[in-house]
């Protein structure tokens, strides 16, 4: 393998950033700091305003519950065991922060996610700056700071935000490696990918994009020792997951989940991402990124190829993979933002602006403002509490779930058992109510059910025996599983269900509650 030359790193025309002291140094420091401060302000505002206005959704409840269990909360441990499916780096971070700031609120776990999201914005800024200059970096950072996809996900207690942060760091390291050919960058890239894996194991999909890039770009080559330098820290960090399971006394949790994932039926159609993600990243932003790729194709380098491979591989993979979650493609968001930033900052090269620097800058600012505004409006709408009875998993908290859970905690006997339509509402009620809630849709067949969930193999028998005291209907689960909703309604009728809690959200659902809890009583 031939080496990438160090000459790649020293690009002609780069500004001299040698530290200087005195007034000029201060000016330089302010000049370097204001973009960071501005990005933190914008990203922080979008992520922290009304952060806990709506309670957790199912996944958030699971991860916050896992974090609480890790932190030693024995009341949640029976419902949220530490090892369910994923590695627990993010949950460990949440547990650590909660030990410092206190537990029992939705705000702290979500604030951790929000801070991770802001960090991802800054890394995207650095990535864009490194690839295409300060303007492109700043525009990319601004776009990600207000992008609905990234804002919505990074306001939730989800693993994808931290995974996206570390894969973006890894991408930055790869870029630095390609530019410098130094093994330390490959080592850093391996570490970042390892941390991404410990955040969420699906990060390994990005390695496919990396492989595709090096395979398709033969003039950017790798040394074997550099590959080893990257692989060793990656493998060492990946090994933490099974090692921690073994030391904790639960060695097999992950494998059974993997088997389940491999055999899961399709949960969304193959067109899911095509119909959702363009709107989530912003149609104008996506258009700008694509237009930039076409418009600036003559100026194309390995950089665009790297970004394209990085984004394309997970898109293809998760489109084919039958289990599709809204947030799974979040790692492509920084790439789209950087490509859009490149396109917008490239306006200064338009011939019409060649001798009109101020006009060119004004055009860049105007287009950036339009893009940011086109993102900020839908983002503001999406982070506002919903007043409808439907919900797409991963797009925010579940309205009414927290209130129902609190009612359960206050009004349901400690050892009572409940049955909901599916495990999603069960997770929420278990988190807030700390009562055992089963999911009717959880299959008794171990081959087709999530091993983290306990089924009720014969709900009729359990109800006849009085083993279940409450049935829970919710409009969100009913919308996704009309069959199980009808089945639960049938059980309510058969076992003399009496509504004891009825939860509505906003004015739109006053006549149609989103959550109803029935007390049931079998005929003796």
């Amino acid at each position: 393998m031939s080496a990438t030359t160090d000459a790649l790193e020293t690009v002609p025309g780069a500004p001299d950033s040698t530290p200087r002291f005195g007034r000029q140094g201060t000016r330089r420091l302010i000049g370097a700091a204001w973009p960071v401060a501005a990005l933190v302000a914008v990203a922080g505002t979008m992520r922290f305003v009304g952060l806990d206005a709506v309670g957790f959704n199912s996944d958030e409840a699971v991860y916050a519950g896992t974090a609480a269990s890790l932190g030693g909360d024995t009341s949640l441990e029976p419902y949220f065991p530490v090892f369910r499916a994923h590695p627990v780096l993010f949950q460990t971070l949440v547990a650590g922060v909660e030990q410092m700031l206190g537990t029992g609120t939705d705000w702290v776990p979500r604030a951790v996610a929000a801070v991770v999201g802001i960090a991802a914005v800054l890394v995207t800024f650095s990535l864009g700056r490194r690839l295409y200059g300060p303007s492109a970096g700043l525009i990319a950072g601004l776009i990600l700071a207000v992008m609905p996809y990234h804002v919505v996900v990074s306001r939730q207690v989800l693993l994808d935000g931290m995974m996206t942060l570390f894969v973006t760091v890894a991408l930055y390291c790869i870029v630095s490696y390609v530019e410098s050919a130094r093994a330390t960058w490959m080592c850093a890239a391996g570490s970042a990918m390892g941390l991404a894996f410990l955040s969420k194991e699906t990060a390994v999909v990005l390695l496919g994009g990396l492989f595709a890039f090096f395979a398709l770009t033969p003039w950017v080559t790798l040394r074997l020792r550099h590959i080893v330098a990257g692989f060793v820290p990656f493998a060492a960090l990946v090994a933490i997951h099974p090692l921690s399971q073994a030391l904790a006394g639960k060695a097999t949790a992950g494998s059974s989940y993997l088997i389940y994932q491999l055999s899961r039926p399709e949960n969304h159609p193959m067109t899911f991402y095509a119909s959702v993600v363009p709107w989530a990243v912003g149609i104008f932003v996506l258009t700008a990124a694509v237009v930039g790729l076409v418009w600036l194709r003559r100026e194309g380098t390995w950089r665009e190829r790297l970004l394209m491979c990085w984004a394309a591989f997970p898109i293809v993979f998760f489109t084919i993979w039958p289990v599709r979650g809204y947030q799974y493609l979040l790692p492509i968001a920084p790439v789209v933002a950087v490509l859009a930033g490149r396109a917008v900052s490239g306006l200064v090269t338009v011939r019409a602006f060649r001798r009109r620097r101020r006009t060119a800058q004004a055009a860049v600012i105007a287009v950036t403002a339009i893009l940011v505004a086109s993102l900020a409006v839908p983002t503001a709408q999406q982070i506002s509490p919903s007043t409808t009875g439907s919900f797409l998993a991963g797009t925010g908290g579940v309205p009414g779930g927290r209130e129902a859970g609190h009612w359960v905690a206050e009004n349901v006997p400690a050892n009572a058992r409940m049955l909901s339509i599916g495990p999603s509402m069960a997770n929420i009620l278990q988190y807030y109510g700390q009562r055992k809630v089963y999911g009717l849709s959880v299959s008794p067949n171990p081959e087709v059910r999530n091993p983290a969930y306990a089924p009720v193999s014969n709900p009729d028998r359990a109800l006849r025996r009085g083993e279940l005291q409450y049935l829970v209907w919710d409009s969100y689960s009913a919308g996704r599983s009309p069959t199980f909703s009808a089945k639960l309604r049938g059980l309510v009728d058969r076992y003399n269900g009496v509504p004891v809690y009825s939860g509505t959200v906003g004015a739109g659902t006053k006549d149609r509650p989103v959550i109803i809890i029935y007390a049931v009583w079998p005929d003796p």
Partner: protein
Amino acid sequence: MKARLRAIVLVAASASAAFGVALGAPGAAASEPAPQPATPVEHFIYVMQGSATFDHYYGTYDGADGIPDDTCQPLAAADCVQPFALHGTDPPPLSDIGGIQEAQYNDGAMDGFAAAFEAAGRDRRAPMGYFDRRDLPVSWRLADDYVLFDRFFAASQHGARTNRSFWVAAAPPRYVTTTDTTAATIDQPTIFDRLESAGVSWKFYVQDYDPAETFQARGGSRPVTQTIRVPLLEQERFVTDPALASHIVDLAEYRSDLAAGTLPAVSFVAASRSGERSPASIPAGQRLLGGMVDALAASRYWTSSAMLITYDSPGGWYDHVPPPTSADGELLGFRVPALLVGAHVRSGVVDSTPLDSSAGLAFVEGNWGLEPLSARDAGSPGFGSAFDFSAPAREATIIAAAPVSTPSFAVRTAPVMWLYGAAAIAGLAVIGIAYASGRGHRGGRGSAAPAELNPLEQPP
């Protein structure tokens, strides 16, 4: 015009009466405020089941006065019958032998249980069978968690009808002489008359309630079974007065009252198919009791309620404790199972205060300031010792077992926290070193790379 006015007045009166009933404030006393309970028990539920003795249900319960080790009931020949567990068998109901209790009592010797059956030509071994935790999971669990009375006697040595009369009136049935075969044959004051007069809300919940099955449906002189279980239905006013009759409702309303917040102050409950009158109905009875307690536990009334569960008569089953005489000088029946359940009830206590069903009436009378019905309830020692009102109300717990499910296993969290923490620090350190060395290698130029292309970046 007058007829129309009268109709309007009648409708208005009916509506206001119905509204008053719905609110649990009976018409006559609606204007006076209902007496406040003297204890934190604002709702008292009194459940009367069928036939059982204490030894039949709790004869092997630890800590209670159960079946003595050397028990062997003599027979006519030089032989005896020992108690035996009924678990795993399918025992038939005990034969109904008139006056058997007196023979079993045998002037206080309590040695006629097997002999009485033998003399009647029935299975002499049958009355010595007993159940245990395996057959009575709810009853035993309630005994574990609340108060079990091991000196609670049937109110009389007669059958269910007399005992149920004591349940509501603290006295045996007081018959009226009539030649009208469709007229009520019993007329006596009951606890419900006292409650009605005082304006205390009440209901009588009846499983499978049939409003037509009253004294009016009696065939010949033999009462229909519902009127035995619900003695009020033997009395004229509780059948023909709509205001009083409206208090007698189907048991299904118990759950809806709990959910709707309309549970009355005093509730009596009579089961039918779940009444544990025979061994075959015990599983249903256990489900009924568990369901009622769990429903109460799951309701807003848990902290303000107490539930007394007992059985009307021994039914021929063996018990070893000779009954004492009551406050009115009458000999009581054999011991029957009795439990007191509630948020203010002591936990896991076996209470040996000598009681009978009038103790429940005495509690109602004492709690709401009502006059006693007879010398029996007036002289009842009561079950105040079973309560602990000085302690905070107990948390509600569900009696029914959880569905069989995969348990989750606790793990050691400390190694997980340490390993992940160390991994994060190590990983970030490597990245930091690379970044710092990159800056140094580049002469501190920073990472700002311009967009200009380097020829070396292009494919050859």
